[in-house]
């Protein structure tokens, strides 16, 4: 709203995810791989293993081509991309942490220099001096993580910074140390995983086997401690934030499961390399890397997903509105925008006069400034998919937009804007997914009624207010559902037909008995 929104047809969020995941997969290698280089060099020299040393020279070239080139450019790339997609968050992070970024830049400068001298110094320097450059490289790379980790974790768990705005309070926030340890373990594992790639193309089978075993020593223990570190990490995340990854929020939950599965697969594949280390094939090493990339990408997705609706937890929503009014927010907190209206608050609106005739075009603009930082019409996180599933007409969309902050465990910020702007947005959304003729006859089986009308906020479990509080007696329950706002003032004012209400109540009661049975069984065990 304060900044223009870059309209990326396939989804701005997808673009940022692509850039970021490919970057972290390389940048973690850049750090762990640095330690790998020096320790392997030392090992090779101690054992007088000239074959290993020769391989390491080639591996250094590979390392530099991957990390110094792609790693560095994609790191700048993240910066470019977040500036384009989340300028408000970027601007805040720059102003809060500019000295952190500047310190990281010093380390980065040292790091790049040391990497190049290490590469070019292979045939030129005394072994001891050569290793010295390797150590400087690794220490500088680790120091970059020490800095950047403070800023990334700040976004998820800003801790007491929200109250006191002190640099170090935000920096050494609750998840700082678990994240540092977690990422360091990933970096060590990646050092081994990338080494498998250059090892696999070695003709000398004995050498290949030595490298594979040595790499496994980096991968297997690091991956083995990862679940424990992950558990520590999770424990330091506020319970309600982590809850998103445990069911209520599809993205967070799916990726959390995927991350665990892919981590296990990577672990198993790494062990498999030890079965026939002399014959490990390039394709196999690439498979290991690909699965590891999937695991790591999933982890980053979870971290980003559970942070929603915020980009900086408890401070700035993903759609660039401050979650509470703060001095200097220039009117860009959710409450202020609701009071003043989007069309009055937002700077980058073309048509500020909402009339009866321009509902859809203005609604499209409201969508752009308020929703498009995460959603698209029918691509990545496309609204079309949700609406196809739910079959809401315009009135229902408008009603539901009033309770966005309750959906999927509060993964979305509240709609900020006036009622008429909400109406305009609803008219636009209706054009994305016109209700099909067959669905015009509203669904009447209980499960569908639940999924289309209740499921985005209410989870199917005994503790949920719907299952806990709705009267068991079908007649009383049907009566209660007639006016939802009297049940709870923040409920949308949905009008279900008699038949829909009856089948919903019946379905809810069936679920309740199933839950009861389950509880009983569990109790019995």
């Amino acid at each position: 709203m304060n900044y223009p929104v870059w309209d990326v047809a396939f989804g701005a969020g997808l673009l940022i995810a692509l850039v970021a995941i490919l970057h972290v997969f390389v940048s973690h290698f850049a750090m762990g791989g640095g330690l790998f280089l020096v320790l392997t060099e030392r090992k090779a020299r101690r054992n007088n293993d000239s074959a290993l040393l020769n391989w390491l020279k080639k591996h250094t070239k590979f390392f530099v081509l991957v990390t110094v080139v792609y790693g560095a450019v994609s790191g700048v790339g993240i910066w470019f991309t977040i500036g384009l997609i989340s300028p408000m968050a970027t601007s805040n992070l720059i102003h809060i942490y500019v000295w952190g970024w500047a310190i990281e830049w010093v380390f980065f400068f040292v790091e790049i220099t040391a990497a190049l001298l290490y590469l070019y110094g292979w045939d030129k320097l005394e072994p001891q001096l050569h290793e010295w450059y390797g150590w400087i490289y690794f220490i500088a790379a680790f120091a970059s993580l020490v800095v950047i980790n403070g800023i990334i974790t700040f976004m998820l768990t800003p801790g007491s910074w929200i109250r006191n705005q002190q640099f170090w309070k935000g920096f050494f926030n609750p998840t700082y140390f678990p994240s540092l340890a977690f990422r360091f373990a990933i970096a060590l594992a990646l050092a081994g995983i990338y080494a498998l790639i250059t090892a696999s193309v070695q003709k000398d089978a004995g050498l290949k086997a030595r490298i594979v075993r040595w790499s496994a020593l980096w991968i297997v223990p690091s991956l083995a401690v990862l679940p424990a570190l992950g558990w520590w990490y999770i424990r330091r995340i506020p319970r309600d934030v982590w809850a998103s990854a445990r069911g209520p929020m599809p993205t967070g939950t799916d990726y959390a499961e995927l991350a665990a599965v892919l981590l296990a697969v990577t672990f198993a594949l790494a062990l498999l390399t030890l079965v026939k280390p002399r014959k490990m094939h390039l394709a196999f090493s690439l498979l290991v890397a690909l699965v590891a990339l999937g695991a790591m990408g999933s982890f980053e997705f979870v971290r980003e997903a559970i942070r929603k609706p915020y980009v900086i937890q408890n401070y700035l929503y993903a759609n660039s509105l401050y979650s509470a009014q703060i001095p200097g927010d220039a009117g860009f907190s959710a409450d202020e925008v609701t009071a003043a209206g989007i069309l009055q608050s937002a700077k980058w609106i073309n048509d500020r006069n909402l009339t009866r005739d321009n509902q859809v075009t203005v609604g499209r603009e409201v969508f752009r400034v308020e929703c498009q930082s995460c959603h698209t019409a029918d691509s990545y996180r496309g609204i079309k998919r949700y609406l196809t599933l739910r079959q809401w007409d315009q009135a229902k969309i408008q009603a539901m937009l009033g309770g966005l902050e309750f959906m999927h465990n509060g993964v979305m910020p509240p709609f900020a804007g006036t009622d008429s702007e909400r109406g305009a947005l609803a008219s636009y959304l209706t054009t994305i997914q016109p209700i099909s003729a067959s669905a015009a006859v509203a669904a009447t089986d209980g499960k569908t009624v639940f999924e289309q009308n209740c499921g985005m906020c209410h989870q199917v479990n005994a503790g949920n207010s719907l299952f806990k509080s709705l009267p068991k007696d079908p007649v009383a329950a049907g009566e209660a559902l007639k006016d939802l706002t009297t049940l709870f003032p923040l409920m949308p004012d949905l009008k279900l037909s008699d038949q829909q209400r009856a089948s919903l109540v019946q379905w809810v009661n069936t679920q309740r008995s199933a839950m009861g049975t389950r509880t009983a069984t569990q109790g019995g065990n």
Partner: protein
Amino acid sequence: MMQPNLIPAMDPNPLPAPYWVFKLLLIVTFFLHIVAMNFMLGGGVLALTARLRSKKQTNGNRVFFDVARKLPVLLPATITLGIAPLLFVQVLYGQYFYTSSIIVAWPWFLVLVLLTVAYYGFYYASYQSGQYPGKASGVMLSSVILIFLIGFVYSNNLTLSETPSRWGGKYFSNPAGWNLNLSEPTLIPRFLHFMVAAAAMGGLLLVFMALANWKRDTEYARQLLQFGGKAFMYATMAQIVVGIWFLVSLPRDLRMLYMGDNSLATILLLVGVAGGLGAIFLMSDALRKENIRVAAYYVPGMMGVVILSMSVMRDILRDAYLKPYFHPEQFVVKTQWAVFPLFLALFVAGVALWFVMLWRYGMFGRAKMVEKPPASGS
């Protein structure tokens, strides 16, 4: 029409150090970035020129390879030194910089792709060996063209960031970010001003290489000196024409800043022009007498002053463009004393360590005369 309401509001966080600290860091790091960029791009251009002339002139291919091997170092130097001004420009001018970047989002994003491809191209060319470059020169040419394109996108974005009156029209006609700033009258001269500077500084890179070879291979070193020195002279002459074009293309009130209205800007312009002309004469004299000392010390020294004054002039120009909107006195400053000194300490330590790394590598020992090695470690 002006749409001042389009300019984004600042975020609520205060500046974590006084305004002038960031301004100083911005100008100094921009200067370093642009010097590295000039060596890299100019080096690439002259390597290709040497390759083209290799049929008529001996050693053309050797020059090509010698420069090509330096580019995988000069490009990361450019990138690394570019990160700092990218950071500091966001601290002070974020509202303008983010907005213009979003308006030209796709070209801006594609910079990353072009840069990656160009970078690998440089590595490819540097790893070729033998007498003839073969495919390496084609690859190098592609990389150099990509770097030119990147420079062009930068010129588009940064001129747009200084002219908020154009924002609304461009954004609302294409919010998908497929825009450039082609209607800006200063765009082409400004872009050329940077590119021609690169050719001139590329000449100085060859002069430095001549210095490094002066005792070992005098014949080759002389060739490098003549080739680099001439390239420097011709490019700098061309630069005076481009510079005048740039000055003339500026809106009148901004142009007048350099012609009396702002005494600092006027002095800097005079320093720049006099320094450039002086450098041409010095170089011409040095080439006639084959005086490597003058060519490799005095001329680069003068050019350092010229580029620094140009960097300050550029900053004055930006603030003049943004005068209606940008009011530095409105920044709320709350210096982060808990961390700012740490940055300073680490910065000093980092620079010291950097020199120690180069020194232990033998960068200063090998050619004792080299004051500022062109192909330093980063």
